């Protein structure tokens, strides 16, 4: 077996093992996602800015992964400017709301 193919196999196995451990730790609560959508220590409210930020992140990531999956000739696809504007706007809304809520305490 060629050395480059062994390396390829090793890196693939390492990547899969890391992903599996990460998923296991998240699902068993040892890496906690609790509080991801909670706004600070204030009274419980629907944190719209956090929900939209998470939603936009997931949408941008999955859209880009799909583009990579269908990309031809091993070329990395670019991201359309509209997606960048969406992600930037979403980040600004999230950060501004966070800064405002910290300031008002």
């Amino acid at each position, binding site marked *: 077996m060629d050395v480059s193919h062994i390396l390829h196999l090793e890196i*693939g196995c390492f990547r899969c093992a890391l992903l599996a451990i990460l998923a296991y730790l998240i699902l068993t609560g040892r890496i906690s996602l609790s509080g991801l959508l909670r706004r600070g220590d204030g009274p419980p409210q629907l944190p719209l800015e956090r929900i939209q930020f998470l939603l936009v992140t997931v949408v941008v990531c999955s859209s880009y992964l799909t583009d990579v999956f269908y990309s031809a000739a091993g070329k990395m696809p670019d991201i359309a400017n509209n997606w960048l504007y969406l992600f930037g706007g979403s980040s600004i809304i999230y950060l501004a709301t966070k800064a405002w809520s910290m300031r008002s305490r």
Partner: protein
Amino acid sequence: MAGVSFMVQMFGYVVCGFLALLGATIVLLIWQGKIDISGLISEANGSASLARFQFLLISFVVTASVYGLVEMRLNGGGYPDIPRGVLILFGMSAVTFLVSKTISYSQPDVMMGSSQGPIGGVDDNAPASRGVQVRRQSGPQRTDPLVLIVVLVGFLGVAVHRGDLTASMATLLAVMGGLTVWFLGLFMRAVDADGPPHVETHWGGLGGGLGGWSLSASLIYLICAGVVGTVVFVVFLNHVILPKQ
């Protein structure tokens, strides 16, 4: 010449062996908890940080894409060029993380706040050790079901945008999938409160008129999640996967 080629190949195998051992050791140490990544996306007060989470997600997507494309070009050689848009996205993600961290730590009292409930027996009179200790929770915190529902809605949104799903089908899947996640969340909470799923028999009073079976709350939630989840799976299989084949 053949001897040199053989030596180079042997050196390659030795490097492969070393890297395999290194990778296996890292994975083993993480698995055993000796390399602790439990605070990977946590703030100092123990709750998960959205900015860290998105940075992790985007880093993973970009690196996985680069690695995947390098794999495809294994015999063609060279690294793929990273487009400008990807670099901008990565930069925005990093800046968001840094600004969020700066905002959080601009008020350390809030970050080390105590409204998270009892956290690992932290002593209020020991501020120096507080930052380290607050990360250690008294027990595992369950994943917020709302996070999973938002992620599910995001994936369905992409599928609708790409025309893989109709809007009505995506709505149906979002509602049913959301219900499944919600029942699973209730199941987790019930397991924490009441132990694993179980069935109890009791014989009641005279004549056994009140006797019968009693299911634990966790078992009921698990059954509900299983039923709704099966419906989602069947709908997904029949309307998304099979029609394409």
